[in-house]
């Protein structure tokens, strides 16, 4: 009996030891997987003198791991593109994975924890969080492995870190706009949106449409209301580049007076009370751009990321309606637009990759090759490569043409010399709280001013 106790005690001690071991390992896993790390480091050094390494690399049998999120359509197209690449480079085989958006990031976080992020992976505007895992492309651009000759400076900038390192290449550039149904505006006698319309115009039109047609004047902006109301609305005020929600290097706030936010929050609450903007219950019914109230005919306009525009345009066309696209309203007609061209998502090379150069070469091909992009069909957003865009534009549908024209228009708008389109770690929390505060204003729990103040201090708390 005693001996048993002793032996089980020993087992327990050993296990406790392993507990401690593992606990440390989670924070810093390099020590527990020394062999793997060693090989990784060796490989990591290789690209440094890539000129001599390159020929050797092309002989080598390489397996690249790649992952992305998206729909069935995207999966099929991406896999077809990968297969084309494999046929062109027989020494390279791909192991690919694909998930839906939420699942992708859950999976990515586990891989970050275990230092085995895919060689090539897709990231959106939240990339600052994964900076440690991104291997910058600069050295490959220099050595010519990655070709950026046909990608404009502005487009390259969308996936650059604040210190100028090229983190990845964008899969497609994107921007926001208001999709609307002109027929509904005319029926209600509301003024159509134009390039210089203001939030006041927006509210007036929405209220009028609700009054006359009994539908929502504007559909819900969902979580993008934060981008419209906080990011864009703030940067639209003052001189060009004077205000922005967060500062350029994401270390603090980009404006000082929380009251800049108050009118927007007040407008939202007023619209919800009048019924010209969906309340929380109605907003919850919108799950997807395809069942947005604009598409179901219950609203006259909605917020879109422009790469979604062709989808809803086509659905509405089937119903016999024609949609149009307008820029987001401004604070004053002659003020800043607050709009910039952004990257929808980008492909990056991972720090954990053993074949960084091969991964970079693939990314370059993926963004620049015309055959490849004819397969992909701009499904991820508007290609950043001019030649690719021209090739695709030849076959563009009406909706795609509207989208291309709109992006051209936005890219010509004056923008501050430096701006920031990235979200700091934890922005989602500020965003969720912001939406709740608006509901509290509607129910009379707090005033719009208090909501603005709370939103400001929530955002400020991210940097403490």
């Amino acid at each position, binding site marked *: 009996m005693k001996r048993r106790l002793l032996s089980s005690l020993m087992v327990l001690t050993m296990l406790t030891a392993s507990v401690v071991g593992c606990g440390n390992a*989670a924070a810093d896993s390099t020590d527990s*997987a020394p062999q793997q790390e060693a090989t990784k480091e060796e490989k990591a050094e290789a690209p440094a003198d890539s000129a001599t390494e390159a020929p050797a690399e092309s002989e080598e049998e390489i397996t690249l791991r790649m992952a992305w999120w*998206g729909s069935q*359509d995207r999966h099929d197209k991406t*896999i077809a593109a990968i297969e084309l690449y494999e046929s062109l480079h027989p020494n390279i085989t791909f192991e690919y994975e694909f998930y839906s*958006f939420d699942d992708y990031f859950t999976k990515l976080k586990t891989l970050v*924890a275990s230092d085995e992020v895919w060689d090539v992976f897709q990231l959106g505007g939240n990339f600052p969080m994964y900076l440690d895992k991104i291997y910058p492309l600069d050295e490959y651009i220099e050595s010519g492995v990655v070709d950026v000759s046909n990608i404009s400076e502005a487009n390259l900038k969308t996936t650059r870190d604040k210190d100028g390192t090229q983190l990845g290449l964008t899969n497609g550039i994107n921007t926001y706009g208001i999709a609307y149904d002109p027929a509904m505006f005319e029926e209600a006698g509301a003024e159509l949106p134009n390039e210089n319309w203001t939030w006041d115009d927006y509210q007036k039109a929405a209220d009028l449409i609700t009054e006359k047609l009994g539908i929502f004047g504007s559909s819900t902006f969902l979580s993008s209301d934060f981008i419209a109301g906080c990011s864009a609305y703030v940067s639209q005020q003052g001189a060009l580049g004077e205000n922005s929600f967060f500062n350029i290097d994401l270390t603090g706030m980009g404006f000082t007076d929380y009251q800049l936010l108050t009118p927007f929050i007040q407008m939202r609450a007023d619209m919800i009370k009048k019924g010209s903007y969906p309340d929380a219950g109605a907003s919850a019914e919108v799950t997807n751009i*395809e069942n947005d109230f604009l598409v179901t005919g219950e609203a006259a306009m909605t917020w879109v990321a422009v790469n979604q525009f062709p989808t809803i345009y086509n659905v509405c066309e089937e119903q016999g309606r024609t949609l149009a696209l307008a820029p987001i309203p401004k604070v004053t007609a002659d003020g800043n637009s607050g709009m910039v061209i952004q990257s929808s998502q980008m492909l990056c090379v991972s720090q954990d990759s053993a074949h960084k150069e091969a991964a970079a070469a693939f990314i370059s091909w993926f963004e620049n090759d015309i055959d490849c992009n004819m397969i992909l069909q701009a499904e991820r957003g508007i290609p950043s490569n001019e030649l690719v865009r021209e090739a695709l534009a030849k076959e563009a549908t009406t909706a795609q043409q509207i989208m291309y024209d709109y992006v051209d228009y936005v890219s010509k708008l004056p923008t501050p010399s430096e701006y920031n389109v990235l979200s700091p770690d934890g922005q989602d929390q500020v965003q969720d709280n912001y939406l709740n505060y608006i509901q509290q204003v509607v129910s009379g729990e707090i005033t719009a001013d208090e909501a603005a103040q709370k939103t400001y201090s929530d955002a400020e708390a991210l940097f403490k």
Partner: protein
Amino acid sequence: MKERRLITKILYHILVLAFGFIMVYPVLWMISGSFKDNAEILRGTLSLIPKDLKMSNYPTGFRGFGGTSFAVFFKNSMVVTTIATFGTVISSSLVAYSLSRIKFRGRNLWFTCMLATMMLPGQVIMIPQYLIYYRLHLVPGYVPLILPYFCGQAFFIYQMMQFMQGIPRELDEAAKIDGCSKYGIYARIILPLLKPAIVTTVIIQFYWKWDDYMGPLLYLSRPQSYTASIAIKLFADSASVTDYGAMFAMSTLSLIPVFLIFLFFNKYLVEGIGTSGLKG
């Protein structure tokens, strides 16, 4: 008298059926949704009859993703689920026997630990657990999806313990007098009498495992190894387009195995009520 009885009987059946219909309505809606097109599903009509019957959701869905069809996903699910369910039954009954029938030091401790494992949300232990399997070089692979099920599942251990409480101790005593060891008592007395609890374990665990997608998401990586549960989730992407028709079609297909398991084992819960129990 006889008439009244008949009326009550008919009433009983009507009531049970009507209520049953309300119960399964959402499921029927899903099945009918598998024959509708996306626009009709999204319009949110609650009608069960599709406007025009669209059969193509099934072939579109079954085609799967990038050359891996749902036949593969269903096969993977089947293998994982069957093994895990089998493991749960064996291991949980063993553990339940020790915790409910054997008086040994530490059993209260283990019982408490068992309940505690259910009280921490999966989200906070998921990543540390992943790291352990990763260190053991078991990722990616099926082992982390199966191995824990051979270590007993708290929900079922406790359930079996409660059922064992209903088995009279006199039976153990009698067997002991006949020269049966404690191992023999488990195999010859307890296990056979535990049949109803085992049946419910199979039914419930099979479904849970079949439906589980967090595990497969974390521990599998090649699309060819995905289970049906993650594959179905692939149709829905909040950032782009969701093909509801195809998703409903595959969800409907995915219901069939769990439903068959239920039908097959359910009969053990129905037939011969009251014939077991004390007859030993």
